[in-house]
């Protein structure tokens, strides 16, 4: 007997209640607070803010908790919330050379003005599980030298003076806005960078890695990676002058890449640029590699690898889009499946009929 697939609404409600229960876990264990997430899972918060395109530590922490730690789900929550926010205008460009440095390293120079500042990093840790880590109250770290407070020149500006490296491109006119105009191809670098900064860390990591392994190789050096606080300013139309409205933590990565030169341009170093909210260092580095790889048109290079193919990279970098389309396969498709069944049965019937004719 045919049982109608009724009661969808009740089932959905029940499933959501069950989700709430699972999210809470064992009620005998204290509930995690969003303050704890904001303070102790900072890199998760940083990633959700970066790929969610919204700088708000508290909202990101709420999203991570609500998403049960699924960061792509949390990014999605932040993006959906972002849709409803009114837009007052654009901030003036942040000035990363005025950054209050917490970490600043260059792999291209042994030392440079301002020095190498390691800051908080996993880089030289031994990856040994520290079973007692959560129990031990960390001893307060001695405060760094006083000159950490002063701003440091950017490494690429130091060699830029010699003309060895191309000038940082400043496109004339207003940059585009990916969130207000759909991306069209070919895309200029402003839109490519916007697309990459909100792109999935894992996807960009793999693409960046592929360029290192020879698929669109660009011989990179980590010219500088800096992490710290920068001021954000805004010029309200009615005031007509700039006011500082806050400060954000960001990571900036400038890659130095080899370039053999082309018909019109002598050999010089070129740049790849990466930026993220918080300390998403892996993301900023991957982004810089992919940014450089995507500059094939501009630098008149031959496009041979996936990481150099902007339609391929930019159309598939957004994890909210990707996860939506992949996971939508869970939705019912029985009408189309029925159409395929009908077609396949007919084709097979005919093929068998033909086979019989041939046998006779």
């Amino acid at each position: 007997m045919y049982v109608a697939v009724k009661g969808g609404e009740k089932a959905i409600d029940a499933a959501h209640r069950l989700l709430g229960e699972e999210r809470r876990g064992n009620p005998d264990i204290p509930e995690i607070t969003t303050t704890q997430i904001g303070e102790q899972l900072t890199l998760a918060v940083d990633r959700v803010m970066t790929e969610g395109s919204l700088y708000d530590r508290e909202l990101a922490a709420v999203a991570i908790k609500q998403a049960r730690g699924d960061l792509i789900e949390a990014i999605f929550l932040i993006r959906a919330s972002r849709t409803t926010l009114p837009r007052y205008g654009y901030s003036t460009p942040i000035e990363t050379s005025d950054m209050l440095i917490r970490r600043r390293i260059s792999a291209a120079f042994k030392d440079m003005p301002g020095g190498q500042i390691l800051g908080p990093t996993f880089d030289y840790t031994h990856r040994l599980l520290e079973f007692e880590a959560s129990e031990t109250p960390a001893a307060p770290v001695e405060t760094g030298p006083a000159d950490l407070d002063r701003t440091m020149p950017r490494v690429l500006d130091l060699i830029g003076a010699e003309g060895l490296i191309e000038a940082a491109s400043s496109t004339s006119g207003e940059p585009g806005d990916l969130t207000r105009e759909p991306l069209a191809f070919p895309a200029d670098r402003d839109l490519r960078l916007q697309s990459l900064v909100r792109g999935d860390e894992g996807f960009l990591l793999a693409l960046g890695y592929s360029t290192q392994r020879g698929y669109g190789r660009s011989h990179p050096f980590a010219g500088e990676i800096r992490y710290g606080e920068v001021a954000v300013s805004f010029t309200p139309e009615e005031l007509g002058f700039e006011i500082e409205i806050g400060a954000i933590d960001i990571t900036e990565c400038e890659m130095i890449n080899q370039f053999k030169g082309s018909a019109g341009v002598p050999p010089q170093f070129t740049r790849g640029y990466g930026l993220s909210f918080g300390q998403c260092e892996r993301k900023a580095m991957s982004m810089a590699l992919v940014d450089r790889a995507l500059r094939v048109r501009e630098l008149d290079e031959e496009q041979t690898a996936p990481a150099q193919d902007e339609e391929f990279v930019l159309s598939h970098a957004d994890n909210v889009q990707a996860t939506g389309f992949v996971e939508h396969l869970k939705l019912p498709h029985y009408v189309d499946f029925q159409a395929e069944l009908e077609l396949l049965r007919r084709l097979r019937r005919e093929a068998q009929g033909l086979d019989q004719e041939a046998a006779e």
Partner: protein
Amino acid sequence: MTTGYNFAYLNEQTKRMIRRALLKAVAIPGYQVPFASREMPMPYGWGTGGVQVTASILTPGDTLKVIDQGADDTTNAVSIRKFFVRTAGVATTEETEKASIIQTRHRVPEASLREDQILVYQVPIPEPLRFLEPRETETRKMHALEEYGIMHVKLYEDIARHGHIATAYAYPAKVNGRYVFDPSPIPKFDNPKLDDCAALQLFGAGREKRIYAVPPYTKVTSLDFEDHPFSVQKWEEPCALCGSTTTYLDEIILDDKGKRMFVCSDTDHCRKAQEKAA
């Protein structure tokens, strides 16, 4: 109704942007208009394009019907209907005749639509040429030049290989003699309903950021060849519930011995037919 959000979730600037895209789409039937699709509170692939179109055209006086696979009670249809009840407080219905706006995924209702109705389709891949040419830069050129040769070659190769055009859903059609378009993954059974339809038909693809339209009473011609004319699916048995022989049927597997039955995919139409028979 949930407060704290604008009527139908989207803010007015966003709606205005979408309405402008809709007007352009109506003015150039079948042309894919790029629009600045927003992240919605449901995932891409769940009908964010259709939801944004519906949100932009919805007024408090509207009666909304939402179907998925032809049915009002499939999980995603329920979820989208609830979303508009929560954010817009509009009346909803399961009856095709009573709806002023119908949002659909994968089906066109069996009952003919009227001039005072709008059908909103959820579209996953708006580009009919995408699987023949993945690059947007190329397909845009092909549309501009009305260069649809590769599509005809594909259909021809189907016939050469299988004796039939092996496309059972999302069957390409030409709108108003100009643009080849993707009618969304409706079964080709539904393609004839798009032709000369009294209702306005709007198509929203959220992830791909495209909107297109078929205005009322517009010619929609499914692609075919003179010697291989377009034809639709047929079933050997009628609907097991209402006895219809003219509707699209879903196959229901009843046991593990291959026993199955066929029932109408359009649940509202089937229920009405059963009531009429009783």
